[in-house]
């Protein structure tokens, strides 16, 4: 990307993160939180916010220091940058949103090992200026948030009959959806659905990344 960048391509960057390169459904990176924290919309949302924050800050930081890091030690350096921002997020969440943190503290700490954050830092932010990196971070973060909220939506609605903790439908819930099994089912079915939409309406090849 050259200096002739304009506003539109920033919007494209964000859109790529949400749809065509959605971290969970299309690129299939960082699947652990997709199952782990999505037993409710609220948890999925908070996790998404945490990832959005870390991803954006890491992209900016990597972009700023990209000229000072020797290529041979870049991966460990990125790991330390990520770990620093995760610590910031972890401690802030422990202070401000206690009840949610109590349920998913371990997973917040494990953001540090998310492949998506490292891969965006390596593939994008290490080669780009600060502003595009910022938008790339926002786009990918929102894509992540979007995926987690969708999965959380189905699992909470079917598994507990509620949304964001408020009861919605008054029937006997499908308990299986909030068990680990349900998480795997929900992700598998939604991923299949995304593939189907892609093949049917956009002529894509289907069969996403293959995982890592």
């Amino acid at each position, binding site marked *: 990307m050259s200096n002739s960048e304009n506003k539109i391509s920033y919007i494209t960057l964000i859109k790529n993160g949400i749809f065509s390169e959605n971290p969970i459904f299309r690129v*299939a*990176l*960082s*699947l*652990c939180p997709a*199952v*782990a924290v999505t037993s409710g919309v609220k948890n999925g949302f908070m996790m998404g916010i945490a990832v959005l924050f870390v991803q954006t800050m890491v992209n900016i930081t990597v972009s700023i220091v990209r000229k000072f890091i020797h290529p041979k030690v870049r*991966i*460990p350096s990125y*790991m*330390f940058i990520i*770990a*620093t921002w*995760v*610590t910031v997020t*972890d*401690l802030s969440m422990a202070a401000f949103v206690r009840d949610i943190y109590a349920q998913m503290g*371990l997973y917040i*700490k*494990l953001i*540090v*090992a*998310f*492949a998506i954050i*490292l891969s965006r830092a390596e593939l994008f932010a290490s080669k780009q200026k600060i502003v595009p990196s910022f938008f790339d971070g926002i786009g990918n973060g929102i894509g992540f948030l979007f995926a987690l909220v969708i999965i959380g939506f189905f699992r909470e609605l079917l598994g507990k009959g509620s949304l964001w903790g408020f009861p919605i439908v008054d029937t006997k819930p499908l308990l*299986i959806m909030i*068990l*680990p*099994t*349900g*998480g*795997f*089912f929900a*992700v*598998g*079915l939604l*991923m*299949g*659905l995304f*593939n*189907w939409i892609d*093949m049917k309406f956009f002529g894509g090849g*289907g*069969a*996403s*990344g*293959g*995982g*890592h």
Partner: protein
Amino acid sequence: MEFGKLFELFIAAALINNFVFTRYLGLCIFFGVTKKMDTSIGMSVTFTSVMVISAALNWVIYKFIMIPLGLGFLEIVIFIGVVAGFVQAADTIMKKVSPALYYKLGIYLALITTNCIILAVPLLNVSEGYNFIESMFFGFGSGVGFSLAMIIMASIREKLEIADVPKAFQGLPISFIITGLIALAFLGFSGLITL
């Protein structure tokens, strides 16, 4: 420390709280390497040994360096640094000492740093307050549990190659659904031991 308690800890880490099926960690590698049996066996061996050593290493560093200096809040940064450093060192040493083994397992070593489980084990060791031996057994149990999950999954996916799956579900989506079914089966272990 009696042997019975360690055995319970091991079984609990490997079966009841299996990282893949009940804590949903390490899925990236789990889905990445289980396409073939050989790669998943190679990964299992590498993974279990790195897990035990990193659990021990991190326990020593936490107990003798971080606690005396009051650095507990830096656990994420330090643990990831220790794991990355150790993996890098293992990579270099293996290349020099045993090139044959390096060509077999070296590629998995590089993947391990971005695995959540390898970081989750030291973090859990700290929050559960395990001692040195317990930490190592917990790491070993987790490694064995992860290996078991990978080998089960690899054998199913090899059969899946010849199955007639709808096009939209080929690859990852169907693997997720199978994992869900195995996770359901693993729920059956939950009453085995009460810790």
